[in-house]
Each structure stands twice: as C-alpha cells, then as structure tokens.
C-alpha cells in the first residue's frame, strides 16, 4: 500500500454549533489535506473538542457541512464514519484484554480470524506493547493504556485519526516520548491526523499545520513558523510563543504608521488594515537591549525601560523589562551580548520592520487561561 495515499482530506464548511443560546462554534471553516498532521490549539472552552466531535459524529451540528474524503458525512452516524478516535481518558473496554480491545473494531468489520490476529499483532508491535496482549487495561500504566487506545484506533486503517488531548493526563517525560511515537506513526501510516492540545510546544513539535481556536472561531491556520513570525491577529501572536505588545494612539505618516507608547512615538512600515486601535507585536529575538544613549542605528525604534528579571537559559539570557508606561517586555539575548543586572536602565531597540502591526482585539494574557495547561 502506498502510505502517502491512505489519508482522507477533511473539508469543514461554515460549521456552527449552538447549545441553546450559546454558540460553541461560529461558522468554522477549515480544509485539512490528505495525510496532513493538523493540530487544534486554543484556550479552554474555545471549541476544539466540539469541532472534533462534529467530525467524529458524536455531536450533531447546527449548520454547515463536513466532508471526509469528498463524502458529506452530515447524515452519517458515528459508527459508519470509519474515523479513528483517541480520547484523553483512554476509554479502553475494561472487560477485554489489550488484544481484545484492539481486535474489537476488526471483529465488527467481520475480518477472518487469521487476518485479525495478524493485524492486532502488527498494531501492538507499532506501539511496542506486544508483550502486554493478554493483560487487562486495569493492569497497565496510563501511558501504556494510551498506546493501546492508539493501536485500537488505527488497527482498522481509518483514513482519518482524531486525537483529543491524548497525552493530557501524562507526565512530561512520557508525553515527549509519546509525541515522538505519534509523529513516527503518522509518518509510517500516511493517515490524516487531527490532534487537539492545549500545549503550544506540543503543537509546534508535531504539526504540519496548526489551527488556533478562540471563542468558537478559528483565528488563523498555518505552520508553527507562520503563526510565530506572521501572526494575523494579536490573539494568535500572544497565544503562540512570547511577545512584547505595545499599544497606544496611532496615526499614519506617509508609508509609515506611528504609535504613541507612553509619551514617545515609534514607527512601523505599512498602514493599519482597518480602523480601530492598533498594537505592535515584537518577538523576544527581535529586541536588543542597549545601554541608554549607546549604539543608535538608523531605522530602529528605541524605548527606555528598566530590567525587572534576568533568566539564564544556557543558550542565552531572557530579560524581562518594564517600559516607561508600565508595559512588560521580553527580550532574548545571546551570551555574547552585553549583560544587564536587575534594575539597570536600558533602551529596548528593534528594527522598524521587525515588529508586526496588528489590530488591538483586546486580547490579553489573562484571557488565555489555557496557555500553560
């Protein structure tokens, strides 16, 4: 079998889901290519699980359409969709052995016995659980149970595999190891994977593309790099990685936009996309800290600040600074750069084109409660 052609494309069109007056999904549209590793990332309650559930058929949608491999699945009950699902809570059948669990979907598909045995063995080998075939789920650790769940969800070769925070209940070491396993299995199977996580590092480590959810909508879809370097909304910029966000009144000056931070104006090439308040987003690597009045370069913005935290990272130093207007900033410097101590007055400097001008959507770190979960 050609691994690259086994996955199914998924097309989500204007899917809306309401519970009473509450809108859990608001016209969500998303295309997932065949064989892609797509991750849903977003704060708690943003609609990730709901989206997964409507794809799997566990939840009816209020409006819209979903196609799995060209086929509209709107009226298809969950058990006819042929979609593998891995749950955060494992959901293994406690009255069946590991082999019994993995064999279950094959029995339902009425495969001959020899075929079933062969496939169960192959699936268990894939998750390194061959020696555990005759154990019951209660006799396994959390990580082992989740690997059985993974084997069970893929043993019937579904063209699409959905995973809802499958590693959420596991400790960090195990999580990292299983991430690698999942990535390897994805590569070997060529199945389309849709993966839900709270954890942005996990999303960055695993995915071809990431869809960032916020309040029942998708804010942006792109590779991890796209989302980090070219966020399209302030929410995405803040949610992925670390950033410094500057806000204030703005005006257009020729080809440039100027923003008033405290009592100082900083410039950025380009004009705002819409009306309304604007914000500047800066990644920590783009910022240089300098001693006040030294090393001024043309084309850079400079704002006075004070160092409030210095964290040694091994590969460099992360500084937290507070600007004159109270804004918190983050800069990452290499070990070769100048060193600063707590309380040092500094100037935060960056090349004008290295910031991003985004509409200020009022998102704040506090609202992104799911970020570090």
């Amino acid at each position: 079998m050609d691994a690259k052609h086994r996955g199914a494309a998924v097309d989500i069109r204007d899917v809306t889901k309401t519970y009473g007056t509450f809108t859990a999904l608001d016209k969500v549209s998303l295309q997932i290519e065949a064989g892609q590793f797509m991750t849903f990332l977003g704060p708690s309650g943003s609609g990730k699980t709901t989206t997964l559930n409507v794809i799997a058929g566990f939840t009816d949608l209020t409006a819209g359409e979903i196609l799995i491999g060209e086929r509209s699945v709107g009226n298809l009950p969950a058990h006819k969709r042929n979609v593998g699902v891995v749950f955060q809570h494992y959901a293994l059948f406690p009255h069946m052995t590991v082999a019994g669990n993995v064999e279950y979907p094959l029995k339902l598909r009425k495969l001959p016995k020899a075929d079933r045995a062969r496939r169960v063995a192959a699936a268990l080998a894939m998750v390194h659980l061959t020696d555990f075939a005759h154990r019951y789920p209660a006799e396994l650790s959390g990580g082992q149970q989740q690997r059985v769940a993974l084997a069970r969800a893929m043993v019937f070769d579904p063209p699409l595999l959905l995973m809802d925070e499958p590693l959420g209940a596991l400790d960090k070491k195990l999580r990292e190891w299983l991430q690698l396993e999942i990535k390897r299995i994805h590569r070997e199977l060529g199945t389309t994977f849709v993966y839900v996580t709270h954890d942005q590092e996990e999303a960055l480590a695993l995915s071809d593309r990431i869809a960032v959810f916020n309040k029942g909508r998708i804010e942006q879809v792109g590779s991890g790099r796209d989302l980090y370097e070219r966020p399209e909304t302030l929410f995405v910029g803040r949610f992925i990685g670390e950033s410094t966000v500057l806000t204030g009144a703005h005006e257009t000056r020729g080809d440039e936009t100027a923003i008033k931070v405290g009592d100082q104006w900083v410039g950025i090439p380009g004009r705002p996309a819409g009306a309304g308040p604007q914000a500047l987003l800066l990644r920590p690597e783009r910022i240089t800290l300098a001693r006040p009045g030294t090393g001024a370069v043309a084309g850079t913005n400079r704002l006075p600040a004070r160092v409030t935290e210095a964290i040694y990272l091994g590969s460099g130093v992360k500084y937290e600074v507070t600007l004159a207007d109270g804004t918190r900033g983050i800069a990452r410097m290499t070990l070769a750069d100048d060193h600063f101590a707590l309380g040092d007055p500094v100037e935060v400097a960056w090349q004008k084109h290295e910031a991003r001008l985004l509409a200020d959507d009022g998102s704040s770190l506090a609202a992104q409660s799911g970020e570090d979960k």
Partner: protein
Amino acid sequence: MTRLQRILIWIFCAGVALWLVAPTLVIVPISFAEKKSLAFPPDGFSLQWYANILNSPDWSGSIVSSLKIAAIVAVVATVIGTLAAMGLAKMKAGPGGILRAILITPMIVPGVVLAIGIYAVYLDHQMVGTLVGYVLAHSMLAIPFVIIAVGASLAVFDTRLETAAASLGASRITTFFTVTLPLIAPGILSGLLFAFVTSFDEVIVALFINSPTLKTLPVQIFASMTRDSDPTVAAVGTLIFVLTSFTIAVGLWLGTRRRRS
C-alpha cells in the same frame, strides 16, 4: 491489635453470625422429627416429612408453581427493569428522579394495600388464581428491585465507552451487547436474583389471589401452619435453605475464579 482484642472481636463476630443463622438452623432438626409436632428440640428421627413433600400434591404442586412463577417473574422483571433503568440513566436529573420515584413505589407501598387493589381488579377480570395474574402482580413488585440493582451498575458505568465503541464501528445495538451489557451484567444478575426471590418469597398478595388449583409455596406453608403443626414445613424450609446456600456458594466460587483468571 493485642491478642485479647482479637479474641473479643472473634467472639463478637461469632455471636452475630449465630444470631443471623440460628432461626434457620432450628428448622433443620425439626424436619427430621418422628412425631407430628414442631417442638424444639424434636424427639427421634425420620425422613417421613421429606417423603410427604413428594407424596402430597399440595406440597409438591405448590413448590412447582412457585418455581415456575418466580422464574417467569425473574425474566419479565429483569428485562423491563433493565430497560427502565437504562432509560432513567439517560434522562435529565429532575424528571428522571421523579419517574424513578414513581417506578419504585411498589416497594414502599404496604403489601396489604397493593394486595387489596390487585384483588379487587383481579376479581372483576377473572384473574384470581391464574398464572398470568401471579406473574403480573409479582413482576410489579420485583421491577423496583431490578431498577435499583441495574441502576447502581449504570451509575458507575462509563458512558464514554459507548462513544468509543461507536467510533470503532459499533451500532447502538452492537454496543449494548458487546460493551454495556457485559459491564452491567453483575447488576442485572443481582436484579434477576432479587426478582426471583421477591416472587418466591411473596405471601401477602399471593394469599389474596390464590386458588385451590394454583397456589404458591408461601401460601401452602401459611395454610399448613394455621391448620396443624406439620413438620413438612420444616422439611421444605430445610430443602430451600440447602438449595440457596449451594447456589450462593457456587456463585461466590465462580465470582472469585473469574476475577483471578
């Protein structure tokens, strides 16, 4: 724990155990009595009362009737009670709670009150002393026990397993038989047992609706006791005691064996 404490606990437990089984054990010697008397301790030894069970159509007939009725009731009440419990488990807490309370009333309403009601209706419809009459009345009494036993199993059943089964390709029916049923089977089995015993043991309603042609064992025992002091009662009691003890022992043995494998 000191040695003394351990001995005291032993004595206490033995006392409670004796208290629980003593009434049952008293009937065993009486069943072997030589004279027609229920005096305890009895004089002499004979097996005549056991022979009497077989020879007297009153006794053997009522035992067969009771077993037959209880078996049918067990099946009917278990099927209906299980379906009811599953429906209740899927309902919202408020209306579900009210419906559950209504379904359980036969357990709470005094037996005599139910018996009078049942008797009045049965008289009008010529159902006194019929098999259908017994089965209907006893099933009504037994269903609440099944609902409670199965409901307890369903309360700890993880319904997410049904979602998982659906994702693996199982229809609702298949999911019920391959996932739900095996996992709530202990509750269903104890419901079945309760239903059987409820019917087998039932006196009040049975006294009202019995007829000379169809009467259950408790009615026969009651009649025998009020008429004369016939140790056949003790013989029947001993037989039932031995049979139930044996059944429970086998059940426990199977239970532990399954768990170990």
